[in-house]
């Protein structure tokens, strides 16, 4: 699977962080670190949501694996 962080993973981590902060079990230092991480995740998610529209790509199998190329047909009307 893909290495880079997904929206879904970010939200899962955010849920953990929110729970961690709310429980009050962590030290102040840890809490600050979590808060900082959470804010970064939110920023990441929001930047994802503001990303430009992606094109549709066509999956092709080659001898060395898979490649994707933009679809020729203008299917977005």
């Amino acid at each position, binding site marked *: *699977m*893909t290495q880079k962080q*997904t*929206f*879904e993973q970010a*939200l899962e981590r*955010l*849920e953990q*962080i*929110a729970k961690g*902060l*709310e429980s*009050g079990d962590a030290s*102040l230092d840890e*809490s600050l670190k979590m*808060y900082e991480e*959470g*804010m970064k*995740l*939110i920023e990441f*998610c*929001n930047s*994802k*949501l*503001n*990303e*430009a*529209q*992606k094109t*549709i*790509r*066509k*999956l092709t*199998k080659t001898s060395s694996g*898979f490649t*994707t190329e933009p*679809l020729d*047909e203008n*299917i*977005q*009307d």
Partner: protein
Amino acid sequence: MDQKIYTVSALTREVKELLEMSFPRLWVEGEISNLKFHSSGHIYFTLKDESAQIACAMWRSRANQLIFRPGDGMQVLVEGELQVYERGGTYQLIVQQIQPAGVGALQMAFEQLKKKLHAEGLFDEQYKKPLPLYPEKIGIITSPTGAAIRDIVSVGSRRFPCIEIILSPVRVQGEGAAEEIVHAIKNMNEYGEVEVIILGRGGGSMEDLWAFNEESVARAIFDSEIPIVSAVGHEIDFSISDFVADRRAPTPSAAAELVVKDRAELLGVTNYYQERLNNGMKKLIREYQEKITSYSSSYAFRKPEDFIFQKIQRVDDLQKFISMSLSHLIKLKTQNLRRVKEQINALNPQAILGRGYSICSKEGEIVKSVDQLELQDIVDIKLAQGQFSSQVKSLQ
């Protein structure tokens, strides 16, 4: 009149004999109309073609064995026997079995496959994989030129513009379509980067949609590691792939709505977390502030002062001790000194004289023996108080 005159009954009986004997069990093809499922379980219908029709009856014992539900307008092959109903003066076909003809046969195959796969457990809820909540990369298996891809792309990018769509183009009908779909499902799994797959096509006749009812396609869907949403045809169309897929969507557009979350909704989710984090942090800070306040007034926090006071006291004690020790030492030394002085005193000749002794000396030399003296010698006698001279009168 030598012509034979039949009674109605006799004529009908002869017709019955003639008909029923001339047409033993037979097959006839036609279209079902006026279909009635009687509460008794028997089925009555009319089989017709362009220019004729024949009444049909299927008794309950036979009707129960049908694996599909016949319907008006269905083209069927019917196996049965002709029977004349004397009381009504009519004849009808007593149906033993019905087989759909044309598309009807597909329908029948559909039912058969559905029954088989259901029995195998391929539709069981326990095998349904959950769809990802917020996919960013979705796979689509459909025709690159069909209505389905257009609908999915327009709905998908309207809801979440940065959604990545990977299309595995396939033929969705006709010869070889099923093989291409099976291949595409396997490729998508091998590729592995999409989080969910939409498999489907736009509406069409049952024949058009047939690839999605093929057993090979059903098994490929079942074997897929990536969750698959099946979206074949219109709302009313059900395909085998719908049953075996992890989710069914009534149309490709609906599939896109099911899979792709709305951007506004997602912004709501991130805002929700932002608020939760901020509130959590505020609460934490408040708690710490309260702790600090309570600490600063608590015994525990005053402890360092106590500690210092205790140390100061200790220093005082030590000082006292030291000074006490010093004076003690001085006293000791003084006593010592006095004793030594007394000892020294005891050795002082003056002190000896004090005890009543006297020192006799002749010409400055202390006389310790009479051998040092001659008669008439003048000696000096030193006493504790004063001194005098005397003349030796006798020597012993």
